[in-house]
């Protein structure tokens, strides 16, 4: 992907979210969103362990916002 394409993709993304953000969900309509199983990651500690297993076996582990150290690779 060259730079121009990348910039276009980002602009498109901004536009999409711009439109989305016009949607209004009133606070009293957010009951479903507040349910525990609607959390982005409902069980973070399990997620960490699973990610650790994947990271030790797959190449695509970096690149996120993650900070952390060590290898623990087996």
């Amino acid at each position: 992907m060259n730079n121009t394409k990348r910039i276009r993709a980002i602009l498109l993304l901004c536009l999409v979210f711009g439109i989305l953000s016009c949607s209004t969900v009133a606070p009293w309509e957010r009951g479903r969103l507040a349910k525990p199983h609607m959390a982005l990651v409902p069980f973070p500690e399990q997620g960490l362990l699973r990610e650790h297993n994947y990271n030790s076996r797959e190449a695509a582990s970096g690149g996120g916002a993650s900070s952390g150290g060590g290898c623990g690779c087996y």
Partner: protein
Amino acid sequence: MGVPPAGVVVAATKPHRRSICSPKNRFCSMALVTERVRYIGRKLKKVFRCESRVTQEKSSISDGERINSSNMKKRSSLHALRAVALTLPGLAQATDGDPSTFTFQYGRYEEGKRELFDTKNDEFDPIVVDSIFGNVSLNFLDRFKFSGNYTQDTWSGATPITTAPLQFMFDTPTGASSFAATNVFVDADFDPVDTSVFTPSGLLKDTQLVHMVTSASVETRKQGDFGLTYEWDEAAATVGGGLSSESDYESHFVNIGGSLDFNSKLTTVDFGMSYTWSDIDVNLDPRFDPYIDEGNHGDDVEISIVDGNRVTSVTGKRRDWSANLGLTQVLNKNALIESSIGYTRSSGFLENAYKVVGFLFVEPMPGMPFLSGNFDGVLEQRPDVRNQWVWDNRLVHYVEPLDASVHADYRLYHDDWGITAHTLELDWNQPLGRGWTVIPRVRYYSQNEADFYQPFFLFKQAKPLLTPGRPDIDFSQVPISEYSSDHRLSGFGTLSGGITIAKQIGDAVSLKAGFEYYTHQGGLKLGGGGEDDFADFDYWAANASLTVDLSAKFLPVLSSSSNDHFGLHRHRGHSGGHAPAGVMFSHMLPSAGDFMVGYRYMRSERHGDILHGTGSVSDATIISQGCGNVQCSFAPRQMIMNMHMLDIMYAPTDWLNLVLMPQFVDMEMDLRPLPGQSLDVGEHQHGGNSTHETGGVGDTGLYALIKLFETPGHHLHMALGGTAPTGDVAQTSIREEHPPLGAAGTVEEFVHYGMQNGSGTWDFRPSLTYTGQGGAFSWGGQLSGIIRLDHRNDSGFAFGDEFKSTLWTSYNLFSWLSASVRMVYTRQGEIRGEYDGPHSEIGPMDFPESYGGEYWDLGLGLSSMIPFSGFEGNRLAFEWIQPLNDDVNGFQLEREGSLIASWSISY
């Protein structure tokens, strides 16, 4: 072992991974919020703050439910008043935001056997990992949140170090393992041939590849990290950092992050940066050292002589910078989406120092049906920089007819090593009522290979020699400078599926268990063209966790109680007063239905002189007398034992408590060669690394506590029960042998007795405890014993029985803090039987008669009922055990002391 292809482990401090109902993302319905919201009346903007606990309690409210506006106004003004009261200094409690919690998790990872054909390596056990994870999340001063994590992984077993044509493999001289030959034959197409079978048409082509695996001794990684978050009404900022430590890899990291809410909290922007710096210091396996050419690593490699052995070490430094930007958007009342981009730049030593690459040099000779070649192992070489980009997308959608939610995640990864990867994951979250939730999930991952990956590398040229007559490769004559055969950089796909089951018990406790099966196959790669099936493998992983709310249940008690909060809870949770941290079963839960969760950590160290009886002895005495009929060649220099125990206690009636006590242990022993004894060829060598590590799940305790007698100020109870032999007693270490002729080999043998994870026997552990209380003083005494119910464990021995007695007194310095002093007398028998398999006999620690003895100790402790509002019912205690007098059996390392820390909460 070693460096991963990308060794960044995700810390638990990701700011954007919080529950949607955390203070940052307050997408909570008015119906939910009315209970405990903090409504800031001064601002006309509606700012809602809710707790996930409230949410859970109230999640049964139909989301279609609307509250009419006049009703709402009334409630709002009431809550505005309450909110104003709560914002007054000192009144604010830890009731806002997410609850403060303690989480403990255990995880197990087991790989299936790989296809290694008939090579000797097939006898090695595949890799097994035990992980424990602890987290404490605390909310304090209204807007601060602290999160502390501890992670410990212990692994052992065999793992691939490189790949070679099956026809090149031969058994090493000791017959313990297989390695690739250096002089090999190929046909005119440069393909390997089977030299053992002659057919009329000549030798048969055989291009089958196979992994070469090595089995390593037990290793442990420990990581501690923390995050501190400050929350404004519509923003949050986090700082964090941590440390990860392994014998060959040490990592430090810091991170900052933040989030901003916009658009009536329908939109949240997250951002973060992190920096990780790591030091790698690896000692190469001496078994394979002679076969591996390290000349390509220049200054990274250092060769030294330790205890008379050649040790090749590889050192390096690595730096990782990461940044990310994410956006969370509520799409409608049923769905939200998160999209984030991340970038990581890694630089420095990015290799895995244990991974080897096969170089096949064949000089072309036109017209010849067969050619001879050289097959050499070299250390892998990766680029010194890696730029990685990630685009991560998560959609969460509510499914109304089933009150379920579906989570769909797609992740695109790309780096400048040529790897592009796609990950797709689907989770179905199904609440079942009565606090139960099940989550089946499926995940697919695919990556293509790195530019410099090949299972082995063929060069159609004669092997370039650095010095004629010597085998060292002249790397300047090799046409490539970057190469790896690590299968993690190959092209493949993976498919995994699993299920998580969660159960919420009351407000306070939630239990989770998960299972996952994972298969890695070249044939699953998106678009085909993945690695051949020799690299396929699978694993299963299981985990179980317990989360307790540190402030649950106590609020109602507080609000109706007098000023004496602490007295109330002391009475409630700890009728036995403040017994020191090291005393087990020091109290009972007072009433039926009570529940307690505790965690106890114990660290014991031995260091110093070798004792025989009560006095220390010289090295000469150890050599001549410490090892029975043979001479000792090693003595222990230091031994460290760490133990993590969970303490789960329930009172079905007021006179009976049931206790479950899982344990996790890890141990480290450092040996020193005795003078004049270590240079014999063929003796026990540790490859320059004289430290042994073991660890994993320990024995599991099951007890019943029975109240015998109680009057005001006096209490007597007994514990009946013991431990089940869940700890492994077949832990081995790899010993290198250096015979006078031939190459080094290895022997896998039982590790020193004191380093097994458990006793291996069913142990009866009765105890009798008396506690008393009067004024500011409390006191007590305990008699306890360990009786081994089996004569021998599966490895052929049993630890000695033990008797212990202790007396203590403690004084309340403040209403919330007490100090204790105690005396301990312990008597333990020597080991009965001995290992029934290969084990070394190189030092006193390998002889059953050098275990047990009589010990006197002094304990000094502090115990505290946490006085902060919102954390009532939490007890924290520390104790230092100082050895006073040892009278040991045989020859033993002097004891340095023990530190015990315990925490518990009662409901």
